């Protein structure tokens, strides 16, 4: 990459400088007390944060997330009971219903926002963080993986799905009895763990580590 004609050179001591992503105001990086964040004086955007927890904590969250993800995907999510008929649903059977009826756009949306991107995020973070945890060199392609995670994160919609599930269950209340399955609990855990991991990880720190090791 460094030899391609269009590659750019970073400024000297690029680690010490940053531009506000929302208004381009230039700042010299100042160290923050743990738990504090730096805010742009001009537009009010958050520039960076200093997190209390380290890489090992984030990694632990990601690995637990992966386990919960497996359960949430393949165990029964909800069961519906009406007039002696019981029907169980998993996330995948929901997608199957859409595919059978030819609603492939909705199937794709669910597949991407609830399965592919959440999995990509958790697996990708584990891949990037593990070498840091072991004190090894940066994983091969870590920059590419972390860039993908950055692009995918707004499209990972587990927490929105949970809210939707709540509404759906209430709507069904007068029509049939709904029972949460194991996957429903796993989902709640997965959402908490994912949100926590997102809170703990400061992307700028990861980028700096990727840069320094690579």
């Amino acid at each position: 990459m460094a030899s391609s004609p269009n590659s750019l050179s970073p400024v000297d001591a690029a680690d010490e400088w940053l531009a506000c992503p929302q208004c381009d105001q230039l700042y010299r990086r100042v160290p923050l007390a743990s738990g504090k964040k730096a805010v742009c004086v001009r537009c009010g955007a958050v520039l960076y944060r200093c997190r209390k927890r380290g890489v090992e904590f984030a990694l632990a969250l990601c690995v637990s997330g992966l386990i919960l993800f497996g359960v949430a995907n393949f165990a029964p999510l909800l069961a519906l009971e009406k007039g002696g008929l019981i029907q169980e649903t998993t996330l995948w059977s929901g997608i199957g219903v859409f595919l059978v009826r030819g609603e492939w756009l909705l199937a794709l949306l669910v597949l991407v926002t609830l399965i592919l991107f959440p999995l990509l995020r958790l697996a990708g973070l584990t891949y990037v963080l593990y070498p840091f945890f072991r004190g090894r060199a940066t994983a091969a392609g870590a920059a590419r993986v972390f860039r993908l995670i950055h692009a995918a994160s707004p499209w990972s919609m587990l927490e929105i799905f949970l809210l939707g599930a709540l509404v759906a269950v209430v709507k069904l209340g007068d029509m049939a009895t709904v029972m949460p399955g194991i996957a429903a609990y796993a989902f709640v855990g997965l959402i908490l763990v994912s949100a926590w991991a997102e809170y703990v990880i400061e992307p700028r720190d990861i980028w700096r580590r990727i840069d320094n090791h690579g």
Partner: protein
Amino acid sequence: MVSNALTADRLGLMACHVCGLLCRRGEGAARCPRCGASIHRRLPDSLARTGALLIAATLLYLPANMLPVMSVTSLGREQADTILSGVVHLLHGGMWPLALLVFVASILVPVLKLLVLGYLVLSVARRSAWRPRDRSRLFRLVEAVGRWSMVDIFVVTLLAALVQLGDLATIQAGPGATAFGAVVVLTMFAAHTFDPRLIWDERGAGHDSGGDPR
């Protein structure tokens, strides 16, 4: 308000949109030396792209609200619901907190998002200097809240997947659901292609002053 800001752009620098690395500006298309993302002074054709996506989303907003998002067939009786009639049903059922939630997520947020992004595009095109800080805030709000409109899609997904009880009761997603999902996706892309730094650009040159993050 601020005409003397020291921006990366004024020093001939560009910050990577993905990893934030500050680079010296080069000629033509270029990639970030750290993360490999394509790097630009500002997002390319930001106003045109955001504008086009907004127009597409506005057009799809009509079928999304007029066509049924789901139909319930129960004991041979079929009832189709649009987004708005779904909210009304919840209200009649006495579930006003849920009705409010669905109203905000499915009706209020998409409309506000279209209006706010449309306004931001116009204000930048007209080089408005009016309250840039508040416009930045507005953008961040819209960017953060937009994903939550997907709630209704997940409600339909779950209901359609769950309620497959043959003659007893069946729920199907309607064409409005696909249109609504497309509106949410398009407005998310529209927010993504809008470069908030444009709000602050071209407001005259004054004397240089760096800033300290607060």
